[in-house]
């Protein structure tokens, strides 16, 4: 059977274990090519780091994958399905979740409510159920509330559960973003700088949790982060972007010693050990 037939019958991921494939994606804003003919893939069940200089196109690529931007050209495949240009809520329905570099909380809603609205297709969303299936709605809400409270406790935000999210500090808003991903069962999570603005002790706690999600539940994680301690510790594979396209890919050890990466990202004079 030829490759094209296999792809037609089983989808792209069957052939090589990748859950996400980016093929020749280009996205420009005016004359600036934020992502330029970028091709890369993420293997299922792995933690993959995405690093690169500021303005390399990392967040733009996340926005293209999760439907916030439509690419000018190229394709995005998730589990073999072409999801290019799908709206964000459709992508979320495929169990892909992302967090933002600059936290985007629902400002007027309480911290607890910010978590409770994440699960999709809740019984209470339907008018009919609100009249005739009150018990089911309450039971589902109780499960969600318990889960949300456990998450807030994990992030040490439980004492602030009832205040509007706009009153959280910058770092706390980041934690709330990450907390949202814990409200639902997911296939893939894209985290945009989860460590920024978070104290070191809590960073370690979050990273331990992420590792656990990957190892025990097979969740695939794709993480943009500038903190090399985090990236080198938890990633199986690291992809380096520069000028809108993939510069290198490898294990943390390979990336640490890659001359082109040191020049483009880490600085000629510095090794990672010297930086941290």
């Amino acid at each position, binding site marked *: 059977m030829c490759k094209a037939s296999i792809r037609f019958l089983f989808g792209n991921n069957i052939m090589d274990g990748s859950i996400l494939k980016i093929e020749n994606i280009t996205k420009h804003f005016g004359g600036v090519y934020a992502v330029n003919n970028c091709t890369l893939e993420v293997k299922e069940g792995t933690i993959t780091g995405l690093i690169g200089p*500021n303005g390399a196109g*990392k967040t733009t690529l996340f926005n293209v994958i999760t439907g916030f931007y439509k690419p000018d050209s190229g394709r995005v495949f998730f589990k073999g399905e072409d999801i290019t240009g799908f709206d964000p809520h459709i992508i979320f329905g495929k169990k892909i979740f992302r967090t933002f570099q600059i936290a985007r909380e629902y400002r007027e809603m309480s911290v607890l409510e910010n978590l409770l609205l994440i699960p999709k297709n809740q019984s209470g969303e339907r008018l009919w159920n609100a009249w005739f299936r009150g018990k089911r709605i309450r039971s589902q809400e109780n499960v969600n509330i318990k889960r949300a409270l456990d998450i807030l406790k994990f992030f040490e935000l439980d004492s602030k559960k009832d205040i509007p999210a706009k009153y959280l500090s*910058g770092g706390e808003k980041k934690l709330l973003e990450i907390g949202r991903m814990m409200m639902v069962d997911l296939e893939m999570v894209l985290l945009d700088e989860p460590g920024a603005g978070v104290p070191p002790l809590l960073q370690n706690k979050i990273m331990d949790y992420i590792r656990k999600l990957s190892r025990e539940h097979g969740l695939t994680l794709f993480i943009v982060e500038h903190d090399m301690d985090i990236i080198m510790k938890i990633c199986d594979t690291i992809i380096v972007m520069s000028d809108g396209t993939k510069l290198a890919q490898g294990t943390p050890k390979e990336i640490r010693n890659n001359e082109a990466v040191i020049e483009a990202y880490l600085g000629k004079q510095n090794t990672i050990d010297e930086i941290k």
Partner: protein
Amino acid sequence: MNILKVKRLTAGYGAQDVIFDVSVHIDLGEIISVIGPNGAGKSTLLKVLAGIIKPKSGDILFKGTSVLGKSPQYMTSRGLSWVPQEDNIFPSLTVLENLEVGAYLLKEDLSGRIDEVCQIFPQLKERMKQTAGSLSGGQRQMLAVARGLMMHPDLLLLDEPTSGLAPTLVHMMLEKIEEIALRLGNAVLLVTQTLDAVRLSNRGYLISAGAIKYEDTTEALLTNREVRDLYFGG
């Protein structure tokens, strides 16, 4: 000489106090770090110093005179620049306009000053006509700090200045902060979660639940077992 002396400051939002009885001081030529858990009151302290929030009690002496309740514009004109953690650029203005806004109190020609800050962040020079909203997260952070430098501040308040920056730029930023304090003799108050930035400072304060829990030299702070257990871990 103390450029800033904060005495027993209590402040918050509405009826909710966030910082309690906080006292800090900074000398010219010093870099001071403020560390602590999320929500401890670090950013609130900077907002009070910048004149954004009026304190409930306490006093703030800047260059020897009380500036309690003074407006942000007054504080800027006296030589204090504040670079917030969030909402720190004007997204609909161009990079150049953002820099000009940062120096709106200066009457002189700004081109030389703009060239100076662009030497620190060359990426900004290439994007002068681009709207700030179209910059990447790291580029926005560069612009925010560059704007804070436009007024030649005597005291620079930086809230997480290295957040979102690539390692090379973190180093450049830290070098610049060091230069502001050591070479130019100005003072920098730094809120940070980055260990390298803490190491750069002369002294540090650990804030927890709105109150100063520890104040010490950076070396002593970093080797304090309780601080390590509570904050850094391991």
